[in-house]
């Protein structure tokens, strides 16, 4: 393929777009360090503990991967939907409904072995898809703003799950479901459940679908300019609906994998909580690129597992990790917006001219 020669502005804008998340992360870590220092603790020791706690050895690495796995799914869910201009904030609800469907299917039908596993994953996908379809239909028919309907559906899903693990499949009265039978669980490879590999493969597959298929091409076109897409013969309403359904299915699969792959293999209070918003953040920082989302999700996993280690080693409140995560997103958002601003572009172009002129002078 011919080397991509972009115009100077284009190339600089692309590089700025890649640089922004990295700078955002560094800035957030620096401010986090300042806060830790103000608390009288040694930030370097803290960050060392964070890295050691998450990547120190094989067991920790697998823990971090397993912690990042659901975030990859919800990140891909948000990224895929946003690519089509759909603000699906319902990743958490779709994730939870996926888990519920898997539990109902495996525990309800008393399935065992690989059949149970396969059916469980399938149930998760279908349930997630349906939970994504609802806001889609509301948007297509009534033009409802999907941001609010998806958030409300998150709460409905949370309480529905409560019904599942308290009243339907409760483990003799305890507020958690009976464990998934051993044979129906996701097998482990090198201490990490296969779900992680499934997530990474799905990420690469999503990249392929979005950037290398005509369906993905149309999804992107509708996301960037729905009017031009309509004029050029794309079925805009059908594509938007499909974006809802597929992003819901991805989150649903995430729920199924979390239940079938991670101890305690049960639905309980707090299953999937927080993964939705993290997914949205990951999609934004990864600028909607599925493969970048995998890395950002892994970094969030490091932040979570490492943050726990840092908290116990240097004794800072865990909210520090939350603040660092929040700062990363704010800087990334502000940075990306600033890069696009005409003023900044003009400034960058001026610098380029300066350099080009200098080159001429030297030549």
């Amino acid at each position, binding site marked *: 393929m011919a080397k991509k020669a972009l115009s100077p502005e284009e190339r600089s804008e692309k590089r700025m777009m890649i640089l922004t998340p990295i700078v955002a992360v560094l800035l957030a870590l620096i401010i986090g360090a300042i806060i830790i220092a103000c608390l009288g603790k040694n930030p370097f020791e803290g960050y060392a503990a964070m890295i050691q706690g998450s990547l120190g050895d094989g067991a920790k690495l697998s823990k971090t991967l397993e912690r990042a796995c659901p975030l990859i799914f919800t990140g891909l869910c948000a990224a895929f939907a946003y690519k089509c201009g759909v603000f699906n904030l319902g990743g958490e609800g779709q994730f939870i409904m996926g888990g519920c469907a898997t539990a109902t299917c495996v525990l309800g039908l008393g399935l065992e072995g690989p059949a149970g596993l396969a059916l469980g994953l399938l149930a998760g996908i279908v349930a997630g898809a349906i939970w994504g379809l609802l806001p889609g239909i509301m948007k297509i028919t009534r033009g409802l703003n999907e941001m609010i*309907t998806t958030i409300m559906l998150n709460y409905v899903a949370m309480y529905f799950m409560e019904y599942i693990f308290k009243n339907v499949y409760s483990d003799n009265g305890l507020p958690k479901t009976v464990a998934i039978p051993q044979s129906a669980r996701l097998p482990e490879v090198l201490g990490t459940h296969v779900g992680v590999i499934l997530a990474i493969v799905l990420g690469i597959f999503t990249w392929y679908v979005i950037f290398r298929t005509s369906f993905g091409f149309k999804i992107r076109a509708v996301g960037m300019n729905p009017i031009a897409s309509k004029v050029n013969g794309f079925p805009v309403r059908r594509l938007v609906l499909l974006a809802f359904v597929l992003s819901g299915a991805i989150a649903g699969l995430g729920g199924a994998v979390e239940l079938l792959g991670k101890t305690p293999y049960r639905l309980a209070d707090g299953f999937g909580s927080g993964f939705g918003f993290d997914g*949205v953040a990951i999609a934004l920082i990864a600028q909607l690129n599925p493969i970048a989302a995998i890395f950002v999700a892994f970094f969030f996993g490091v932040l979570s597992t490492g943050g726990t280690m840092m908290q116990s080693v240097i004794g800072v409140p865990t909210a520090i990790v939350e603040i660092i995560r929040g700062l990363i997103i704010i800087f990334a958002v*502000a940075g990306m917006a600033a890069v696009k601003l005409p003023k900044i572009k003009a400034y960058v172009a001026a610098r380029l001219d300066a350099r080009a002129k200098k080159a001429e002078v030297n030549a």
Partner: protein
Amino acid sequence: MDFMTALPTILKAMTMGAVPILLAALGEVFSERAGLVNIGLEGVMAIGAFVGFAVGKMTGNLWVGLLAGMAAGVLVNMLYAFCTVTLCADQVVTGMAINILAPAIALFGYNLFVGSNSANATGAQMPSIAIPGLSDIPFIGNAFFNQTLLAYLAFILVPLVRYFFKHFRAGLSFRSVGENPHAAETLGINVVRMKYVACIVCGLLTAAGGAFLTLCYTPIYTDGIVMGRGFIALATVIFGRWTALGVLGASLLFGFFDGLNVALQAQFQAAPVMFFKMIPYIFTIIALIFFGSKHAGPKANGQPYFREQR
């Protein structure tokens, strides 16, 4: 369960539940009227709740706490304003960022403030003032006329906001910025300044809604005390048709369903209560389906305003 005996308590829960949503929704009306959809209400309410609680506890004066909470709310919302108005960043994305950052700051502040001394954990509460005579009316008396001063102020704010948008010159300019910013610009209205003012007012009111949760509703601050009320406030603005009266009606309606949910939980103790807990959220969706058609709302709502686009 005889509905009649439970009704006064449901109404009491209604008015209590409605106030924080009403305040946040009024703030959002200012913001959306100036064309800024602020998804970050949840975060601003969390900051208002924590700072209100902490400063109220430190100074011993709840009203100082409320003002501090409102000031903190404005600070956080200025971050939103800078990103969306000056940098023209995407409003949804910035709102989401605020929803993640602000509660984290509040939780971090709470850990520092309370530390391990549990005496700091529970704060005082604003006394509720019963208006003599009115509060004795059966059924609605206790609900509407036996409230904290902040609740009364919130309800009084509704006609004031209505009057502002109807009869104030600034009110007219506000509406024009949200509807057709270019037209407003040709008439000499400074669109960017107006949007910043909208963000300040939105920060003040939303944070006040959050502070109500810790100063009048419950004596403690917990992480996640806002419980989705920010998003419900967004929904009430839509089916309140972006008007002060509409928002009052919508938030009272939501408060009623919240009260009903608790009444059902209290009476039908053996039933699976989680379905009662779903009622307020399902109601919001259904209300949006009927009221929330996309035509309503300021025309230029949610679009960044590029001055150069003559």
